[in-house]
């Protein structure tokens, strides 16, 4: 019985990882350009948040790392992997802490996660390129992360309403 549970869990995580990678692919097809590099919708975050809410932070880190590496090799380069990895990990850390407090809903968690993702991303970029006008990029990317995070939070809420029952563990 326990073994069945474990394989079910693994299968679901594999499924969700594939879904996250697919989200990244769909996103790469949508031209979503505001003239400022680093801004995108972050559809993957729907999947990452589902994993985070229904499984746990360890699973979310695994799924997120896998999709960052795969998407990076498919559509980006080594730099974009480094940026995304920094963003993804900081985002998961922040969202996990917010979930632990139990005081926030999906939209708030997702918005903070979106902002955290962009902060982590720009910090890694700053390590690579210290000439970056950090004080200029940081607030703009934070606000962009908030907006996309709120949109993703609404999408997540709609998805969770329909999907929650599926993952009976």
């Amino acid at each position, binding site marked *: 019985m326990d073994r069945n549970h474990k394989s079910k869990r693994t299968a679901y995580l594999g499924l969700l990882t594939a879904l996250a990678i697919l989200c990244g692919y769909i996103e790469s097809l949508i031209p979503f350009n505001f003239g400022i*590099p*680093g801004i995108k919708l972050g559809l993957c975050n729907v999947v990452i948040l589902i994993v985070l809410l229904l499984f746990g932070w360890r699973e979310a880190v695994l799924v997120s790392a896998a999709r960052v590496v795969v998407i990076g090799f498919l559509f980006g380069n080594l730099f974009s992997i480094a940026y*995304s990895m920094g963003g993804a990990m900081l985002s998961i850390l922040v969202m996990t802490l917010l979930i632990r407090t139990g005081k926030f*809903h999906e939209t708030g968690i997702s918005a903070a996660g979106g902002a955290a993702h962009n902060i982590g991303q720009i910090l890694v*970029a700053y390590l690579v390129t210290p000439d970056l006008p950090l004080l200029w990029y940081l607030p703009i990317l*934070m606000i962009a992360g908030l907006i996309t995070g709120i949109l993703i939070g609404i999408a997540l809420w709609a998805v969770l309403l329909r999907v929650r029952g599926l993952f009976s563990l």
Partner: protein
Amino acid sequence: MTRKNFGRNDLLLILGIFAAAVLMLAAYTRYMSRAGTPMLEITVDNRLYGTYDLKHDAVIKINGTNVCEIKDGAVRMISADCPDQVCVHSVPITANGGSIVCLPNRVVLKIVNARDSGSSSDSRNTGAYNSGSSSEQEPDSTDTSSGQEPDDTDTSSGQDRQDTGTSSDSASSVPKIDTLAE
């Protein structure tokens, strides 16, 4: 999990992050407006020695080799321990730009963000912002040649060539920002 998607705490959280971002933007624009005013930049051996406001009169001793003076918005070298004294005899430089070079001691007095070169000040401002850590010299060949005495032109062009070397270094790091688009 409730069917509720948004609460007071979420609103506060979002507003808090938004406020932090706006604060940062305000600090940035404030910094930029300050950096946009003409300043005297002193470099020794291509390392930033100090940046000074032209509005405040001052006498600045540079490593015991040179002494320069800011008076009524003009900068001139008062004394130097080198034999040729070219820098001491240089025309004083003002907010309109220009530079005074003491080649034997590798001391360069330069006006950054000069009034007549406002269009090209963008990249320089970002460099100035980080100059504390990277101690990078901002090159500007036009400034050096325009404010220079005729005697100095051949030696100062050598200085320029070195500067352009550092500028292409910093320029090569710019395209990396584009890879952020992921």
